[in-house]
């Protein structure tokens, strides 16, 4: 005879094993048996527990670390009035990457992004968020990795995720926010924290979350740093950076936490004050020496300010503390590759492979490193693996593009031609492939085709110097 487990305990167990859907289903059953609906009733502790657990499970399902989210929508970028100086001095702004004073690789060696920064070895939600100069550019730049179109407002993405989760639920949302009596919840700190996280992460209703957080801070007589941080988070999402700054600073006075330092630095980065952010990170390091996230934050800022040498130094510090830090390994690796040391880069990427990273990007990088480090046996197999692991057409296009370079390197122009063509088939906006194809066409003596290709390339990527240079060279020769 099988004895049934106590359902709430089982739900807890599911939650701890991160089987959130099962946990939610079970909690729903418990709640159906002893309905608790909107109002938490102190008489029914069991249903209250189930209610909290369900809220937490639903939150965990869509939880994304808020520190890592910096997405800027077009509205935020173009209508930004938070920056203090419109024409900042060099080295004090993230908007102008500035010239490279530190002797890092020039764009002739290391490709640059549209914002004029050297390509990075690691992609976070915030990378490539360099503010474009014109509206047209803003619309054209992809916001995230490759896929996403620019989002119109930074909250748009979250709202969409929220609606989708609601659609899956035939009975409508779990908690009806408009019917909540927030004052009542604010008086129950344990319940309020779970509820806040649910509203903030799952429902993405920042305004309601802010109301709840404000009431709760008031209830705790402004003595709870956690609530202050939450109020600050809400302000940040709403784009009220100065208010957010106040909250985070006040929270830091009460209790110094790594998270709070990171949030406050995020505010400064949004206000385009990288130097203040750097000082803050260093101040944080005094309290938490060797903290990886703080070190990594410093390295990121240096990288965005185009100070590659300092960035590499800090990434090395990160690796001293945590030698499995993927971001640091990838950035140092790409740095070595573009400073003409592919064999060292190869060792870093191999390390990533040993750690269990297994994706298209890594194999592509391994293939490139192998080729330039003259380990030809591994090159093509790596690229084959990369192609088989590619998740979308943009990734496939990039792998074919790089394979084209291998073909150029071994002197097989026919293969190179086909590779670049395949890159274009997969991604019709691959400016680099257009440019390289034009060079190959010129070798064959097809001047007009080369011209057309170069024009396409330069209109697709005005930030690259190669198409302009080549077009000038062609015009000079055959004017």
């Amino acid at each position, binding site marked *: 005879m099988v004895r049934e487990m106590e359902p709430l305990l089982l739900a807890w167990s599911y939650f701890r094993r991160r089987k959130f859907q099962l946990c939610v289903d079970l909690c729903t059953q418990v709640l159906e048996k002893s309905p608790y609906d909107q109002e938490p009733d102190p008489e029914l502790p069991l249903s209250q527990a189930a209610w909290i657990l369900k809220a937490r499970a639903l939150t965990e399902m869509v939880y994304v670390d808020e520190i890592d989210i910096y997405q800027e929508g077009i509205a935020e970028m173009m209508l930004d009035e938070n920056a203090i100086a419109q024409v900042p001095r060099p080295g004090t702004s993230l908007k102008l990457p500035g010239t490279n004073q530190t002797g890092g690789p020039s764009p002739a060696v290391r490709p640059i992004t549209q914002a004029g920064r050297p*390509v990075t070895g690691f*992609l*976070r*939600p915030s990378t490539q968020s360099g503010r474009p100069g014109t509206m047209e550019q803003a619309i054209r730049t992809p916001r995230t990795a490759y896929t996403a179109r620019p989002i119109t407002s930074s909250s748009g993405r979250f709202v969409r995720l929220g609606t989708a989760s609601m*659609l899956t639920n035939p009975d409508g949302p779990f908690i009806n926010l408009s019917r909540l009596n927030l004052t009542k919840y604010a008086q129950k700190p344990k319940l309020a924290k779970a509820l806040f996280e649910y509203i903030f992460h799952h429902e993405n209703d920042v305004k309601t979350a802010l109301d709840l957080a404000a009431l709760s801070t008031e209830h705790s007589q402004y003595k709870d740093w956690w609530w202050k941080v939450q109020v600050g988070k809400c302000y940040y999402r709403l784009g009220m950076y100065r208010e957010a700054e106040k909250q985070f600073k006040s929270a830091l006075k009460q209790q110094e936490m790594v998270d709070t330092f990171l949030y406050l630095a995020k505010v400064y980065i949004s206000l385009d004050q990288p130097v203040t952010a750097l000082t803050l990170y260093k101040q944080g390091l005094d309290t938490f020496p060797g903290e990886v996230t703080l070190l990594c934050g410093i390295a990121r800022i240096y990288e965005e300010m185009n100070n590659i040498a300092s960035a590499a130094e800090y990434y090395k510090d990160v690796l001293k503390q945590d030698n499995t830090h993927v971001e640091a390994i990838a950035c140092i690796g790409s740095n070595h590759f573009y400073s003409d040391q592919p064999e060292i880069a190869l060792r870093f990427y191999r390390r990533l492979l040993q750690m269990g990273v297994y994706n298209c990007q*890594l194999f592509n990088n391994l293939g490139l490193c192998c080729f330039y480090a003259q380990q030809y046996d591994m090159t093509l197999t790596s690229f084959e693996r990369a192609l088989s692991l590619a998740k979308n057409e943009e990734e496939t296009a990039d792998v074919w593009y790089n394979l084209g370079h291998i073909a150029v390197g071994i002197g097989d122009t026919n293969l190179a031609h086909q590779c670049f063509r395949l890159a274009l088939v997969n991604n019709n906006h691959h400016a680099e492939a257009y440019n390289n194809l034009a060079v190959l066409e010129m070798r064959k003596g097809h001047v007009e085709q080369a011209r057309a290709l170069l024009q396409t390339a330069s209109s697709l990527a005005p930030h690259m110097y190669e198409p302009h240079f080549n077009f000038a060279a062609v015009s000079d*020769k055959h004017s």
Partner: protein
Amino acid sequence: MAELKSMFREVLPKQGQLSVEDINTMVLCKPKLLPLKSLTLEKLDKMQQAAQDTIHQQEMAEKEKPPITH
């Protein structure tokens, strides 16, 4: 080897002009290391994909429903 040496003698001109013609060659774009994606970004992408799939499925289901006839 001795014969070869006698056959080819190196010539090092010590006088005269040296001219180098500067030829404009076209440049290729550089190979591109692909940046690895952070966990947060992967999770966001996955969630967005899942959300789109759900919406898509619902739309398909609605289309497949037979139209209401009177």
